[in-house]
């Protein structure tokens, strides 16, 4: 058996790659195809039965009913904001970890960044709910300086999501900075640049691809999220909630599928845009 496999490298390759390719093809791309096909069907509004005839009704509803347009734009806005906050917060942390901290502290910080990923999503989201709730940490801090707490809403959603996805931004930037030789920073200082100039002219340009790589995670994870907004978002809805409600309560699978294509299309556009920055090589 073994020797015949040696003599037939193609058979060996087929046996090795067959199952994973089947998995990728059927379970992954197949499901995506099924999503698009379903989006082009319709639902009998009286019986609730899916009618398998080609129609653009679901997309028409999506683009003409204003509330869906608002939700789509709101979702994209939240995703952009979360990405921006993560980039701004992650950069100094990653910079400190990779270029300033001694090896021992660096390991500790790396574990500290990774640790929240081991905890349950729900636990972390509810922790923020507790903080944003009346009498919680956030509201009491706001009240202490005489401000009104933002309470549950989009602000809380953005903060919570930015917290949840922060490690996905720190790690690529950290990896990108690790690849940046220290001698470049020394050369910059040697040529007369003060630290802010070095950051702006040497570190940031080299790190931008890594940042974009991180943003792919933060952006796409936010686009698909519907739990955090349920927990801390008050009455606000994101695209994920619309999908969830239409699959569940309304049982309108074609419309849910149509809504779900929006993040996919946005993400494809985003990936096409960032491909030019060389971020794909930083993943």
């Amino acid at each position, binding site marked *: 058996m073994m020797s015949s496999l040696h003599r037939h490298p193609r058979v060996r390759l087929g046996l090795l790659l067959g199952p994973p390719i089947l998995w990728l093809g059927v379970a992954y791309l197949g499901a995506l195809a099924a999503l698009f096909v379903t989006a082009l069907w319709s639902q009998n509004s009286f019986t609730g039965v899916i009618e398998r005839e080609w129609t653009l009704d679901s997309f028409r509803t999506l683009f003409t009913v204003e509330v869906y347009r608002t939700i789509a734009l709101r979702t994209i806005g939240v995703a952009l904001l979360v990405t921006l906050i993560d980039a701004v917060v992650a950069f100094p942390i990653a910079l400190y970890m990779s270029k300033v901290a001694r090896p021992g502290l660096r390991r500790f910080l790396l574990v500290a960044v990774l640790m929240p990923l081991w905890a349950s999503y729900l636990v972390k989201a509810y922790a923020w709910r507790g903080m944003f709730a009346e009498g919680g940490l956030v509201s009491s801090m706001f009240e202490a300086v005489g401000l009104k707490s933002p309470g549950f809403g989009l602000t809380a959603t953005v903060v919570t999501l930015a917290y949840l996805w922060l490690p996905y931004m720190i790690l690529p930037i950290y990896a990108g900075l690790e690849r940046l*030789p220290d*001698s*470049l920073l*020394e*050369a*910059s*200082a*040697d*040529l*007369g*640049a*003060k630290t802010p*100039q070095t950051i702006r*002219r*040497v570190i940031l*340009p*080299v790190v931008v691809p890594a940042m974009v790589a991180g943003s792919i995670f933060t952006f796409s994870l936010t686009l698909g999220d519907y739990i955090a907004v349920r927990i801390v978002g008050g009455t606000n809805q994101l695209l994920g909630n619309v999908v969830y409600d239409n699959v569940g309560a309304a049982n309108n699978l074609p419309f849910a599928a149509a809504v779900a294509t929006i993040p996919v299309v946005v993400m494809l556009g985003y990936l096409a845009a960032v491909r030019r920055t060389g971020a794909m090589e930083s993943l």
Partner: protein
Amino acid sequence: MTSLGEQVTTQTPPDTAAAVSLRGLRKTFGEVAAVDGVDLDLAEGEFFSMLGPSGSGKTTVLRMIAGFEEPTAGRILLGGVDVTERPPYARDVNTVFQDYALFPHMSVLQNVEYGLRVKGVDRRSRRTRALEALETVRLEGFGDRRPSQLSGGQRQRVALARALVNRPKLLLLDEPLGALDLKLRREMQLELKALQRDVGITFVFVTHDQEEALTMSDRIAVFNGGRIEQLAGPAELYEHPASAFVAGFVGTSNLLEGDVAAAVLGTPGLFTVRPEKIDMHTRDAAAGPGSCTATGVVREVVYLGSATQAVVDLDAGGSLIVLQQNRSVQDQLAHRGAQVRLTWRREHTVEIGGSA
């Protein structure tokens, strides 16, 4: 030992401050003293080399002059001004790094302009000066390329241009030729030397290659264990090594010591003879007056092209390396097991002052 060798081209008035002065410089990493008390005075316009094996502290000294490392003790003066506490960007010093450290996201021209740009020199004059600097290192027309599109030798020139465009008082070079192949390296050695003569800037050159140091330098400091073993011009260093370490590190170590020295030279002590000063004869040849002589057996022969190197085990004990120019096609003495007599002039026996 601090007097300049005869090869120094630039005249330095005696009352001006030295280009660089190091006073009792020390640097410890944990328990280890990388630099253990270095005092130096470099003259304006001098080509100065710091030579030593890896871990001898030469690079650490360079990095302290540049400001990348903070000395544990001691002072650094540039042109008489104490800069020990100053950060790298506030020192009139530029460095050519071992890995060149070119900015990968900038073009060659932008790399060269960088120093002028961060100092706020206006666009037009920084462009003019950068193009001039590229011309100096013979890289006209390469300005638009990325560093990744250049060969090792070209990158090296860019790094040089990027440093020189700032017209520093002092240029530090950290084994800049280490990554180049031998032929290119020899070319660059001569080019660097010529360039230094043209621009008149003080060069501090770190290398572990003794030949490189001898070729280019006005003076050389040989480092060992964080200290300077000897500070001298190339010829002085080669002909009169101050210690067994210097004799071994600069050139081939040919030591005669103790009983062997007593048997061959008539006095015990520590002596060295350079391999090319020794002649090899048949055993029955007579040694002339004023010559030292020793008999032995050839143990090993290495053909080097222009010369042949033989290792001769002396009858008195120990061994000597002999280097003979290959003037004739064959030399019947240069084979293993040959019985030979070695002779050299008495004045070529150099007594080593330092400890063994």
